[in-house]
């Protein structure tokens, strides 16, 4: 069995940055990622795209990833692409399946850098073919470089929706219309936060504002204050009905709608280990309870990047480095690069997070995201509607009981798409705060696993 000093789950900005620091200091590091190439979500496909017109159109921040990916490739860490981590035991025994089959790794420490997923935001018809997330469309932009074949409708709230529209326009795509689901923030509060942020990060702020301006000018239509969506069609999306805060209801015809309501930390791995989590009201999301190094309630597990709480790619880099520095400290090593100090990393992290309170506030999801109407499918896998779940919500029922009663969360996605909504429905039904409700317990395997891949382990233990 392989016994590295450090196992890192995720080769995004956080995971790669940590791997570079740790491997260069002489630790034996293994990095596992489900994707075939390093880069994580933001730098997906960077090695293939860098230097092409597509790469340039994706922007400066995207291209900046190439340097990190190259350094990562050369840093000495063992990298297993196309490999899934599907179980981490509390003793850190870690089960992975990839092109090399299934194996068990026994590291001294584990760093979880699994990034984020888009916030599931159920509305009527969201399971129809033709409804996709903005993140999905952006992934298609990066690999293989495809764009919607018709002018596209986007509905959403969050920087990613704006960024995608911007990138799409630069690549020659057309935005038919933008349904802005961002709730309007009181002007004074916005200005205060913006003012504070502008002092230290005016460039970023200006960039965001320019995306908004571009969208305003270039999208066929721009509709502010959308509070409710409904996807129309039977086998395929045919149109979208939306309602604005003022109560205006309109319908548009389209066969593709891209939706986005922000991102959430990927907590599956962390929670399967029983690590403590908390409700972060500012980000309207659960996040792990961590100290300033990314250490969680399990003594030998650290968490960095968006999995530690949404902070964006630059913050992910610095959080990854900080966690790596802590790991070096704990294993009695020092960083190879003299400039890799705690102070430098903390200062850089603080700078990267300057805009965060502003972004969290301005892009706080509308309340309808947490309160789907009766007819809306909440659990996509088991096709359970809000009505079915609410009917089972008599007395004081927790997420796990609701799961047992209704099968919500028992399908292949393992509750990734319904967990948060189920917790919100329970909180609403019982008049409790989200911080008092626990989401589903996470059962292994973290990702589905073929029976033969598990059976293969039996041969291994027989022969060893």
């Amino acid at each position, binding site marked *: 069995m392989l016994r590295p000093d450090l196992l890192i789950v995720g080769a995004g900005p956080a995971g790669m940055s940590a791997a570079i620091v740790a491997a260069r200091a002489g630790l034996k590091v293994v990095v596992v990622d489900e994707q075939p190439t390093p880069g994580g979500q933001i730098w997906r496909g960077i090695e293939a795209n860098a230097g092409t017109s597509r790469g340039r159109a994706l922007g400066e921040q995207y291209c900046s990833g190439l340097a990190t990916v190259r350094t990562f490739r050369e840093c000495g860490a063992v990298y297993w692409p196309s490999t899934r981590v599907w*179980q981490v*035991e*509390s003793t850190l025994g870690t*089960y992975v399946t990839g092109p090399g089959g299934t194996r*068990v790794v026994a590291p001294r420490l584990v760093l979880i850098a699994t990034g984020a997923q888009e916030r599931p935001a159920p509305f009527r018809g969201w399971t129809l073919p033709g409804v996709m997330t903005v993140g999905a469309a952006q992934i298609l932009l990066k690999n293989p470089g495809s764009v919607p074949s018709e002018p596209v409708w986007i509905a959403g709230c969050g920087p990613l929706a704006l960024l995608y529209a911007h990138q799409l326009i630069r690549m020659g795509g057309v935005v038919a219309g933008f349904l802005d689901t961002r709730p309007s923030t009181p002007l004074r509060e916005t200005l205060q936060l913006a003012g504070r942020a502008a002092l230290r990060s005016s460039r970023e702020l200006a960039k965001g504002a320019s995306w908004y301006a571009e969208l305003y000018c270039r999208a066929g239509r721009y509709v502010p204050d959308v509070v409710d969506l409904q996807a129309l069609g039977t086998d395929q999306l045919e149109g979208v009905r939306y309602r604005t805060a003022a109560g205006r209801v309109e319908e548009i015809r389209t066969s593709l709608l891209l939706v986005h309501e922000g991102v959430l930390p990927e907590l599956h791995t962390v929670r399967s280990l*029983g690590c403590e989590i908390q409700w972060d009201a500012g980000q309207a999301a659960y996040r792990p309870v961590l100290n300033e190094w990314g250490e969680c309630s399990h003594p030998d597990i650290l968490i960095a990047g968006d999995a530690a709480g949404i902070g964006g790619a630059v913050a992910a880099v610095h959080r990854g480095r900080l966690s790596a520095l802590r790991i070096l400290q704990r294993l009695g090593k020092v960083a190879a690069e003299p400039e890799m100090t705690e102070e430098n990393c903390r200062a850089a992290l603080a700078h990267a997070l300057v805009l965060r309170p502003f972004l969290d506030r301005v892009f706080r999801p509308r309340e309808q995201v947490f309160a789907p109407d009766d007819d809306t499918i909440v659990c996509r896998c088991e096709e359970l509607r809000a009505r079915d779940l609410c009917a089972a919500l008599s007395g*004081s*029922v*927790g997420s*796990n*009981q609701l799961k*047992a*009663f209704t*099968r919500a969360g*028992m*399908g*292949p996605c*393992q509750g990734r798409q319904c967990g948060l909504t189920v917790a919100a429905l329970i909180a609403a039904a019982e008049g409790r705060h989200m911080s008092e409700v626990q989401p589903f317990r996470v*059962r*292994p*395997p973290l990702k*589905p*696993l*073929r*029976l*033969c891949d*598990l*059976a*293969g*382990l*039996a*041969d291994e*233990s027989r022969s060893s």
Partner: protein
Amino acid sequence: MRAGQATTAVIGGGLHGLACALALVQRGQDVVLFERSWIGRRASSATAAGVRTLWRDPAEISLSLEALERWYRMDALVGDDCGFRAGGQIKVAESHAEMEALAARFAQMRELGFHHEELIDARELRRLAPMISEHCVGGLIARRDGAADPHRTIAAFRRAVEGHGAVIREGIAVMALEPAVGGWRVVTDAGSWTVRHVVNAAGAWGAQVCRMVGEVIQFGYKASMVFVTERVEQAFRPVFSTVGRSLSFKQSSQGTLVVGGGIQGGGDLEKGLTQVDFRALAKGAAAAQELFPAIRNVQIVRAWTGLEGKTPDLLPVIGPSARASGVFHIFGFSGHGFELVPLVGEIVADCITYGRSRYDIGSFDVARLLT
């Protein structure tokens, strides 16, 4: 019923606690049931939910056959069939030597006067399980056996219990039992209740309750693992086990494949924590795949470990306490209590209400385990 008083307290909200509470209220008793966590949280929802009379210890067979009849009448008992499907249970022989073991068992059953188990040859086995591997040579079948849906069973029993007026208190742990005038004081972490009778249906924690009344018994626990796959088209009606290895294999009514068989994972009784040991579980996957090679690419979506009490002779504890009058036990089913759910609660309710039961429960007396 006044808060703080009832005629009977049931400790444990698993299926046996619920079934006993139901039988008690049906016999006119006031019942309060305490569950530390939530109804069905432990073995009752972790179970693979086989309804099996096949291959049981001879001491349990009469009870299990009677319980089986009740599974067929479940609707009348709790207003739902609990997802019970009678596809039979088959113990598969993978070699001729194993077939001989099955034949010996068959002969033993005949000698004892039981006729529910039947030997089948390779042809009949293949007729019942077209996808079974070539190397399997026959089996022993109990055709009236089957499996049910544990969550539906819990929900149905819970509804029936509450519908009959019993009080269920979840999130409350019983800390101590103290003798009181005319019965017992049940001390919980949310106040005390005075009752005439106490039913110990605390599952893996049954011995802890025994200790509260001064009974120290030989008792262990099992941490049995189960895994479940994605839904596949219905293809396996019977439930399968094998002679030579730990395996139980079935398809649920939703189409998922459920694989268990008592393979042990990790558990901590004090903290109530469990862990799945995939290296051990891999043997179950390998066995399932060798029996049915066609399922090798089916995806496993969930695995878990459930805690249950285990006695040295693997028989349950049913009946009055040996030391404390008014206290009755229903626990220690050692991994095969699901099938007995519709019967055992009634037996104990009869003991409490009428002072006796018409079933012979001598083999399950707690006295055999006293140290």
